[in-house]
């Protein structure tokens, strides 16, 4: 496949607390793929393993089986080719907002002068609307502002892959909209690839090329990849008038409310997987679904992917 960022039969299990107890298997034989330059989000219920996948891509978490790749390199450790926006913002509390961003910028371009580092860092802080608070320490910022510093830091190092774990969760609706637009703007002007976790269906539709739907754990899997077939640039006010908008939205909501659990029960009930993860040595990636296209077309696509 032409996936740029991908996992191959990835497995992650946490050993049981009790001696002799069963391991907690977050997922196994997981195949996830993201094309170069693509904006992919991942939704699924809390605790299903979204952060775990993201952390494996970031190189911060070791998988217990399988492998993950960035281009043709195996991901083994964290690196500057990947920028991470952590779920809990993760700023260094003894540094001001500006110094936090500068810290990353300096690491990315060690040869830069202090002035260059500062100018670049300030630019990205003002992109997220923080020009006036750059000298404040994290504890002097609100949760949303802290998160924005984390986002500015990730944007500023212009990595190949941007990994974001529920980055807008702590933001109020207004700020969230502004930063979403900024994110799309930055992304569309670069060849950055984005993998983002969210629990907000509308956000996923607004931003994504494709949305990965993850079933409930344990042994979670990506049931399907929903293609968001809506033209860009998208506008949050007018997008609802697009023909496929409601089909897509309903599909996602239906998945979260009903199918994520059903598909998960399927898995837990039998040892044999109902969906093969590899056929004749060829890895099988989640089928791509376009909500709003005829059901039969999708069904054939899904069948084809499975068989």
């Amino acid at each position, binding site marked *: 496949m032409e996936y740029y960022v991908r996992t191959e039969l990835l497995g992650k299990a946490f050993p049981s607390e009790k001696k002799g107890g069963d391991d907690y298997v977050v997922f196994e034989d997981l195949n996830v793929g993201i094309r170069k330059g693509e904006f992919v989000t991942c939704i699924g219920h809390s605790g299903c393993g979204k952060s775990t996948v993201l952390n494996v891509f970031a190189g*911060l978490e070791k998988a217990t089986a399988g492998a993950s790749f960035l281009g043709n390199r195996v991901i083994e450790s964290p690196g*500057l080719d990947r920028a991470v926006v952590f779920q809990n913002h993760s700023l260094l509390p*003894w540094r001001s907002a500006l110094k936090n961003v500068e810290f990353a910028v300096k690491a990315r371009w060690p040869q830069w002068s202090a002035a260059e580092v500062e100018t670049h860092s300030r630019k990205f802080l003002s992109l997220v609307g923080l020009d006036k608070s750059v000298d404040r*320490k994290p504890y002097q910022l609100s949760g949303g502002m802290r998160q924005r510093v984390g986002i500015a830091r990730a944007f500023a190092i212009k990595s190949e892959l941007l990994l974001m774990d529920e980055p807008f969760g702590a933001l109020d609706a207004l700020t969230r909209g502004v930063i979403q637009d900024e994110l799309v703007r930055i992304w569309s002007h670069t060849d950055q690839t984005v993998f983002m976790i969210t629990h907000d269906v509308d956000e996923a539709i607004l931003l994504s090329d494709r949305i990965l739907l993850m079933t409930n754990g344990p042994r979670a899997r990506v049931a399907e990849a929903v293609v968001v077939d809506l033209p860009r640039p998208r506008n949050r006010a007018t997008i609802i008038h697009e023909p496929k908008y409601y089909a897509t939205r309903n599909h996602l909501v239906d998945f979260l409310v009903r199918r994520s659990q059903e598909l998960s029960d399927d898995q837990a009930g039998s040892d044999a997987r109902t969906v093969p993860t590899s056929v004749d040595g060829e890895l099988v990636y989640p089928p791509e679904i376009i909500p709003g296209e005829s059901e039969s077309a999708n069904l054939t696509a899904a069948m084809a992917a499975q068989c």
Partner: protein
Amino acid sequence: MYFRIRAASLSLVIFLCFLFAWHVLTADRRVAADSRTLSPGERSQLLENGMPESDAIGYAQKGLTYEQILQISELGLSLEDIDGAGGIEAFGFTTGGAAEEARTGFPSPALVWEEAYEQIRHPFYDKGPNDKGIGIQLKYSLLRVGAGFFLAVLIAVPVGFLVGMSPLVNLALAPFIQILKPISPLAWLPVALYVIKDAEQASIFVILVCSVWPMLINTAFGVASVKRDYINIAKTLELSPMQTALQVILPAAAPTIFTGMRISIGIAWLVIVAAEMVIGGIGMGYFVWNEWNGLNLASMIFAIFVIGFVGLLLDFLIGQLIRFSDYKE
């Protein structure tokens, strides 16, 4: 602010009460000049020097200090011989020195204040090995504490880093730390004196030993409890282990490390006084002990106040470091 002022006023009231009680208890309780008695230890020392006990008490009743009586005993003459030769005055001893001090059992605040005033006016006077100003004594104590403490920092911080970073090193060093930590630093003094054979270096060694543990343990704890998130930031930015240690772990653990230093400097200041009492020669501890032996109680009490005040100052200085390095999450 208002709260601060109230607290300060209360402190002042407590201090004044203390001064008043001290004054009432010590003023005007004059003791007869001849009631100066020798301690059993002093008496047996004199006996050893060949002075009969009756002679010793006789001298004491004349109002001679123990030091003076000791010197007389070294002359090897009996009380009769001396009286025959024109009395002890003929030998250059002035009577009444002990009487002067013994007039009140314990010096009054006013007396201590007079003494303090004199001492502060001439802190660096130097009249031979047993008579130096408090400034000189203080300088020596501070230099010893400074040297020992500095060496302890050089050892404790890197080793603490290792212990905090590596669970293996932590487990491997734990038994040594657990056994060495509870040993009183003064117990090392004879060992140090025997091995190093230099009182100065031995006292520095004792300071090192007593201040190394709190710093080491706090550094290890501070380093081990640095949030995973901060380390992850360093990892995603591909910082070298050295950069991670200096730019992430050190600032994150600094308040805890400085807190260890604060405990250490407090202990070091306690220990140096005791060590100097044992080693002698010079320093605040020796000074206190010497003034006690010479029964210069006022001077001794002044020295004790100085020790307390300097201890407070040391604590304050490191407290500033903690404040400076502290951060809110």
